[in-house]
């Protein structure tokens, strides 16, 4: 509210002060428009980010499902030794225990995993560099580790011929990962296989459906349970 008494003062403002006033206003206006622009841009950006809910699947495929091709080796080297091989388009294979593995049919759960099998401790090797120096060459029947339940122990083998890049050392301290998520965090090892070697083994592997069918149908699955 402007006072009558102040009016004359206002009109009597000296020139330079008036100019400052104007500059301030201009600057404020500029800042305002920058903010508005930024807000506008943010809004535009936000519109792009929010998805169309109607297009989203209720349960999307998992990272493993989307990125890998899954194969299964039933009774590998021994009845009941069902293993999986997830193959990435880049040639790397993740191997582990399939859910139908005998170890999971035991009364007791998996209690320990030991990588010290065969000639050396698999958890001790160090692969370095892009060329994967020091990677051990494994045949498909080379032992990777020993999985122990309270009842029994099982030797898990490579399944795939290639270079061993990594074993899942977390299993040493957390063997329970095999009980909770053998198909993901409980993987056993990562092996790099050449295309030629892969093709040879691929022919003997099954898809998940085929494995399920096999296990459902011929349930003469030799189990190591004492029951």
């Amino acid at each position, binding site marked *: 509210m402007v006072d009558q008494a102040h009016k004359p003062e206002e009109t009597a403002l000296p020139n330079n002060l008036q100019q400052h006033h104007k500059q301030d206003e201009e600057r404020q206006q500029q800042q305002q428009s920058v903010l508005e622009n930024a807000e506008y841009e943010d809004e535009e950006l936000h519109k792009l*980010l929010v998805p169309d809910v109607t297009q*989203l699947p209720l349960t*999307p495929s998992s990272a493993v499902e989307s*990125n890998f091709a899954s194969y299964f080796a039933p009774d590998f080297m021994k009845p009941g030794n069902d293993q999986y091989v997830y193959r990435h388009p880049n040639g790397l294979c993740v191997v582990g225990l399939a859910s139908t593995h005998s170890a999971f049919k035991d009364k007791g759960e998996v209690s320990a995993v030991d990588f010290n099998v065969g000639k050396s401790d698999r958890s001790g090797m160090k692969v370095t560099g*892009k060329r*994967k120096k020091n990677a051990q060459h494994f045949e498909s029947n080379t032992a990777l580790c020993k999985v122990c339940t309270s009842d029994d122990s099982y030797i898990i083998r490579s399944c795939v011929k290639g270079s061993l890049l*990594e074993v*899942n050392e977390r299993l040493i301290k957390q063997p329970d990962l095999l009980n909770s998520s053998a198909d993901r965090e409980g993987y056993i090892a990562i092996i790099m296989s050449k295309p030629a070697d892969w093709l040879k083994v691929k022919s003997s592997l099954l898809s998940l459906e085929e494995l399920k069918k096999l296990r459902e149908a011929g349930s003469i699955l030799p189990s190591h349970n004492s029951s």
Partner: protein
Amino acid sequence: MSNEVESAQVSDATEVTLLSSSAEIESHAGSCDEEMTLQLLKDAVQSLPHHVVKDLLSVGVCSRCVLRILGSEDRIYCHPLLPQSILRSILEEVAGFKSEGNFQLCSVCLGILQLSYCDDKETMVKMESPNDMASTIAELVKTEGHQIDGFSLEVSVPQLILENESSLLSGMKKINESELWFQERMLSKCVSVKDVLKFAITKPLETLLDVKSTSAGCFRIRLTYTHKRASDNSVERNQGFKRRRISTGNGLHNVYDKAVITSKVCSDYSTNETISVTGRSSNILQDQETFEHLRIPIDKVSEPCHLVYLCYRTHIYLCGRYLKYSRNVSQTRWIIDEERMGEASVEEIIGSNILPMCRGDNYKFHAAGREDIDVRMLGSGRPFLLEIQNSCQIPSEETIKEIESKINGLENKLVGVKKLKVVSSQGWTLMREGEAEKQKQYCALVWISRPLEDEDVQSISLLNDMQILQKTPIRVLHRRSPLERQKIIHWMKIERISGSPQYFLLHLCTQAGTYIKEFVHGDLGRTQPSIGSILGCRAEIMQLDVTDVKMDSF
């Protein structure tokens, strides 16, 4: 830059306006300015040891070579308007030498400093003054339609010239080493043929092209001199010498052969071609005892050098920020087994639209980091640098705006461009600087295996500067080292999506080099912690967008 200093000295000394042509000098013979130039020249020549000048002229060394070899300080002989004929006559007069009449190519510089050469039509050209030569070059630049704001002159001469010079110098040294004039003039390295030519034509070029010569110039004018004999001889030279290459004027070939057989190879020869020649010739001169006058065993030159002019521009750089709206466009051209991956590439879209506007030969695309083909680049955009090679023209501001609108207005709306501008080669360092330290902001569409709780939203937002450990993701493990990388997640914020209890938008800001996808789904437990492990359930990433690449200099 010494070039500029010396050119300045020349111009200071003479006060002759550079715009006047050599013809004018001849016609205004009486004017004050030319008199000064000529007087300075005469003085310079007077101060040289006359008998040496005579000797050099008699073995076919040209005027400018005489002056430069004898260490003439003032470089008055480089004056752009100084005609050949006048320079020559002054020298002859002072030295008391009478030339045979016919024009003879210099036995050292092969005619280069006599401004004589063979052009690409195989015609012998003989310029009167450096200014005339500069005019020819300037014409060429204009005809080719180059738009320039500076230039840099490059000259390349045949190796044979250095050899001739070397052999001449060592011959002179042998004989005159003890003389006073030798010690005063010849002990420091003499100015090279290249430098003399550059001194002579740089100033007039600057005037004719109306720009400055600069060492940092991106527009290059290159003069390449080649000589037939120089390349022919290399075959002859290599025969019979297993490890050492020797060059020689034709006439002396036999003598050199003998010299090799009879003289011992000195162990302090450098492996430099020219020095080995010097070594040889000094041996020969030693053998010839009855040696009074300076006899330089260099053959007369019958053919001039071949000159090729070339104008080219070194790279120009354009920088800006790009946006990628498509999930099927790779950053750079990606072809596997002759099949293109994705629909297009950012590199090609941007490069192909800019290249024709700069009239360049080709481009190279560099970006500050990259995103996967299925990840969009939104928000402020990612800094990139486009290197255009051999462009004829630096685009103007309007052109730049045109390019930006064109790319942003493309129908398929795959890529966008912001803040496009021309930069110097500094742009390169700007981009690389601190690339690894830059923070990046993302927005991920995440699904979890159970409904999202308020607690989750709260706990995620409280995590600041959280350290994570990522083993090399399996999807890149085949081509990268198996390492464990420590990264920092600076902050995270969950945005709920209405109508969906298990999907949400995760906004996060991380250290450069963090694998976001693996941070969400955990990569089979090889990234710790992950969203899944933090929330205690399974998490999958559906979509990823980059929303900000923080880089102030771009």
